[in-house]
């Protein structure tokens, strides 16, 4: 579904992404691991079109979206959960979710599954997003991305600040989403994660990044065997 082909990216003078390539397939969870500052977030931002790439290509279902603007990518079916939540602080929870389905027709009701996943959001529907606790905001950010029924779901450290039982829930949800999506269609999930156990449990495919490069990749089942935990830790 998603194919990223040798992209390079710079912040000013510093070379952040150095020819990163990856693939994410529908029905699978692709996990990107790596230490702080190796460029994981930057990779996702490049994927979303929030930062320009110097060279390389991004293809979605074989169509190049490298030059597309962020909203066109969203409309092409990418849902994004940014690092640091980035919810709309002064919009209510409800309005945040409506923003999430901006790609849908006006007046589409919110999918009830969202509240099954995150019941707390239903209780706080009219509270301002900025007033939520950190973890609640994180849940909102995930729900918001799901609200657009994306074909490719991109998550940047979604477990950050979330209580353990909900992390478990999220894990289950992601697995389910990958297999059958919100509406029965399999979905591609691209997950950036530092929480190794969580990553290992979910990964169908994994990549490890270091200093802007992919240094290891493979099927999730082999992670333990290949000592990825140690690789990330060094």
């Amino acid at each position: 579904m998603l194919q990223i082909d040798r992209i390079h990216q710079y912040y000013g003078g510093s070379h952040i992404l150095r020819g990163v390539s990856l693939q994410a397939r529908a029905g699978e969870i692709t996990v990107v691991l790596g230490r702080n500052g190796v460029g994981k977030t930057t990779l996702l931002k490049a994927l979303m079109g929030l930062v320009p790439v110097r060279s390389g290509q991004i293809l979605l279902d074989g169509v190049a979206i490298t030059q597309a603007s962020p909203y066109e990518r969203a409309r092409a079916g990418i849902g994004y959960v940014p690092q640091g939540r980035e919810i709309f602080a002064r919009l209510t929870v409800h309005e945040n979710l409506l923003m999430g389905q901006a790609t849908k027709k006006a007046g589409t009701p919110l999918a009830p599954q969202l509240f099954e996943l995150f019941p707390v959001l239903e209780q706080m529907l009219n509270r301002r997003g900025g007033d939520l606790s950190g973890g609640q905001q994180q849940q909102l950010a995930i729900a918001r991305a799901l609200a657009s029924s994306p074909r490719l779901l991109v998550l940047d450290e979604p477990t950050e600040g979330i209580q353990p039982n909900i992390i478990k829930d999220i894990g289950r949800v992601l697995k389910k989403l990958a297999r059958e999506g919100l509406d029965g269609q399999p979905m591609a999930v691209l997950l950036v994660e530092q929480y190794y156990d969580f990553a290992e449990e979910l990964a169908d495919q994994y990549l490890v990044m270091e200093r802007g490069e992919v240094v290891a990749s493979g099927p999730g089942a082999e992670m333990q065997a290949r000592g990825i935990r140690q690789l990330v830790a060094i």
Partner: protein
Amino acid sequence: MWVWAGAARALTPQEALTLAEGETADRIAVMGRLATSGDPQAEALIRAMAREAVMVRGEQVLIVEGETAIDAVTGAPASAEGATSAMVNNRLRGALERALAGLDLLGDDARRQREAALRLRDSLIAQPDASVMPWIENALASQNVSRLDGRARRAVEEARAALWLEGGDAAQRVTAVQTLAHVGQDSVRARLAQRQEQESDPAVKAALAQALAQVDRALIRAQVVGQLFTGVSLGSILLLAALGLAITYGLMGVINMAHGELIMIGAYATYVVQGLFRQYLPGAFEWYLLAALPVAFLAAALVGAVMERGVIRWLYGRPLETLLATWGLSLILMQGVRSVFGAQNVAVESPGWMSGGVVVMGDLTLPWNRIVIIGFALAVLVAVALLIGRTRLGLFVRGVTQNRPIAACMGVNTARVDTYAFALGSGIAGLAGVALSQVGNVGPDLGQSYIIDSFMVVVLGGVGQLAGTVYAALGLGLLNKFIEGWAGAVLAKIAVLVFIIVFIQKRPQGIFALKGRQA
């Protein structure tokens, strides 16, 4: 005043000429005679004088209507070639008005009758003139009763009361006092107070004391209502001026120093529409303002959209730089208008239905233009509130202005939403321009006089808080007018500014501070 004479007498050329050209005193004397003559020709001439449609050509007095002229004495068509206008000064104009009042009172147009009666009453309250008494009695006499409707009749009775108050017997005076007590006007109060000093009859004195108290109450009521009205009216103007800014600045965070110029563009659009109507649709001129509304909205919105596309979109997230750029834009827009329309003010006429006012509670006049603007401000406010709070576009605007990149990642075409939002704010400024063109100057500096007030209103209300903007506008309007009532306009303005400074100390985020963590 002259005494009513029933017999008709024909207008002579000499009289006509004196009326048109003589010494003021002679003209007034002649007019007095003519007004009571009952001659339709004379009445026509007097009415023409009041319209300033009389010209003199040699010895011939003409009544001119547009291209055609008739001889005032014979009624025959005549040529106005080389004729000069008969001049009217205030003294004569006053006499003419009185004469017209007399004519109207006995005419059969009920509306004119009513106006004439009121005018007569007011002038007699101000200056009682006993010589008019027979005439009043005549007007009230039985054969005329059917001709006066209730309101007009009451006014004539009040006029009679004003005369009785000075010249009547004790019983008449008491009736007069009671009648006049219902007329809650300053002039009545002055007249009653004057009477009280001279009055010796105890019954009249008691009635006077009671009446004075009654008038005072009415006056105070009227004063309070008047002050509230002026306050609300000023508030509505502040609100209109600020609403657009509440979007471009309050929501979008653009410190839009060119906001005033967008208002100005709205006002100039009104001016242009007015010109077009005058030229191409003179019949519908009364309604040109309605056409001006969409034109002004679109004109300002278009300029706003161009500003946004050309300049502002590169500056999101750098609010202080928008200050610099929009300041530059405002200089350019102002000078642009100077180059196109000239540096002087242009004339924007109010249509008839917005001129004048409605008299309530004695002599408190609420001008129509103010009333219309209050209603208009309300309508715009409701529209904006619904648009921002209830529509998807409104939601997108709010979302985009809070976090542009993430909104884009949600699939919102942020560039377009930004342009729409800015154009909307600008268009509303344009609407404000239409309204402001009806109360003040339309000139290149128009915007400068509103920009500071607009920012004060938006900020005092709490940035991004529409409700706050409304409260702030009304609050400042009322406060300003209240203080102006006892301290004068200059000190009131200073006091309001000091109030803003002090108020912000108490509420550092404006009236409607954003509560909670994100404040």
